[in-house]
């Protein structure tokens, strides 16, 4: 469904990705783990066109995404939950969700999707009139995910959804991700919390200073002594 071939990308003179190869198949949950500054967020921002590709190809469902503006990529069926949530704090919860469906013209479908989002996160329905900025961190994360879902994406990119949340909320979010996947969306999950990410994904990639150093089924990665030492805090 999504393929990155030898993709390099970066900010000006700084090269954040050095020729990475990565693929995500339809229906999969793929996790991308690695330390701070390894290039995880850049990978996602590169797929959505927020950071330009300097060499290599990004291909989604047979279409090359290089150079296509972000809003058109979103229209092709890729949504992203950005790092740090980035909800619109000056807009109400309902307005945030409406913006998620900005490109979706079908009102009936949008209403149905809204119900699905509320079923997934009942908290959002209770707070629909509130300004986004008044929500707690966990609720903001729910809103960010709900907002991305409103576009009815076939591929959902999640950037550190568990960052800064209490353990119980991390669990809620991860269960929701499983649920989203079961309903048909393919997911590429970026996490520093390698333990949780590998538990909730089919396959994984390990990124180190802009290069992929390991890949494989999640169980195998979770059992690999190198991964255990570097990312799961064991020695």
């Amino acid at each position: 469904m999504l393929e990155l071939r030898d993709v390099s990308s970066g900010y000006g003179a700084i090269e954040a990705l050095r020729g990475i190869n990565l693929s995500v198949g339809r229906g999969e949950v793929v996790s991308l783990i690695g330390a701070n500054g390894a290039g995880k967020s850049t990978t996602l921002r590169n797929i959505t066109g927020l950071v330009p590709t300097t060499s290599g190809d990004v291909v989604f469902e047979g279409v090359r995404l290089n150079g296509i503006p972000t809003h058109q990529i979103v229209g092709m069926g890729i949504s992203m939950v950005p790092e740090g949530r980035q909800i619109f704090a000056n807009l109400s919860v309902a307005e945030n969700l409406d913006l998620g469906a900005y490109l979706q013209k079908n009102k009936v479908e949008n209403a149905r999707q809204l119900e699905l989002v509320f079923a997934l996160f009942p908290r959002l329905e209770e707070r629909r009139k509130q300004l986004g900025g008044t929500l707690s961190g966990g609720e903001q994360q729910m809103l960010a995910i709900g907002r991305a879902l409103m576009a009815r994406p076939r591929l959902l990119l999640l950037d550190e959804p568990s960052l800064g949340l209490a353990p119980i909320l991390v669990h809620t979010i991860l269960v929701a991700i499983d649920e989203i996947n079961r309903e048909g969306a393919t997911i590429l999950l970026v996490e520093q919390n390698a333990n949780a990410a590998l538990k909730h994904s089919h396959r994984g990639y390990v990124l180190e200073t802009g290069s992929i150093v390991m890949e494989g089924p999640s169980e195998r990665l979770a059992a690999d002594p190198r991964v255990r030492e570097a990312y799961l805090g064991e020695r």
Partner: protein
Amino acid sequence: METFLQQLVNGISQGSAYALIALGYTMVYGVLKLINFAHSDVYMFGAFMGFYIANSSWFQATMGTSVLSGVVVLLGAMVLASMLGILIERFAYRPGRSPSPGTLAFWFGILGAGFGYLLGKTPGAVAAGVLAGIVVGVILEKWGVRPRAQSSSLKILIIAIGVSFFLENSGQQVFGADPKFFPQIIPTKVLNVAGLSLDSQKLTVLGVAIVLMVLLNVIVNYTKTGRAMRAVSFNLDAARLMGINTDRIIAFTFGLGSALAGAGGILVSLMYPKIDPLMGILPGLKAFVAAVLGGIGNITGAMFGGLIIGLAEVMAVGYGQSTYRDAIAFVILVLILLIKPTGIMGKGMVEKV
């Protein structure tokens, strides 16, 4: 007491005109974090467009001094001003944010027009100059010469100042540098209400300004495009991720703000009918002060800021000395920067990490 009420009415109508201009500054700042210095010249352009519409033979043949003629002049000026605003954004600011094809050809074409005029002073020479300029621009672009993409706010600010000079000097060239008299398109009547003399011009200014501001509020708060505007002004990248074509929303914002500036140009010209190509500078600066006073980026703030500046100015003339008329806005600017730099309704900028 009566003088005070009289001054109050004058101040409010003056202030509502400032508010209209201030809205353009504050909206563009909201989406681009840019002080659009060319905005005051769009205001001037609006006044001149109104002048030319009202003096056109078509207009004089079909319209007299009536409410309808006022509406025609107002709408015409607003549409033309908004087109100018969108052009400025497209060909001056957008290339400063990200390189777009055709920009070099456009600017070399304008440069060519200038050279053509200097060399030949005939329409043919100007046309040849434009053509030569466009050819040079296209060839340079083919060679890969593009405006640099790295956008720094300082660079765009300097572009804004350049556009402002460009418009002021083109205005002197095209419209003529000498002041012109703006025609009386609405009938002048003085109404006496409870001892106050209210002239129809000031009431029209106030009424039109209120209608436009209500309309703006509806657009910003209750339409899909307005919601997208608020999203873009809050977080550009997040807005892109919603599938919003941010360039189009930015252009729309320029168009909207410029239409209001054009309306402001007409309204002020109704009260003070002397217009010239540099007429925008001072009201533009005062409206900018109004936007800062209200909290730049905040639409309601700009409306209140405009009212306060207008009132302060009229009161300074009425109870102080008319020589301080133009100084009072800047006194307010100094005070607000000392006491509450974010403005009355502005929120403190929180740098998110």
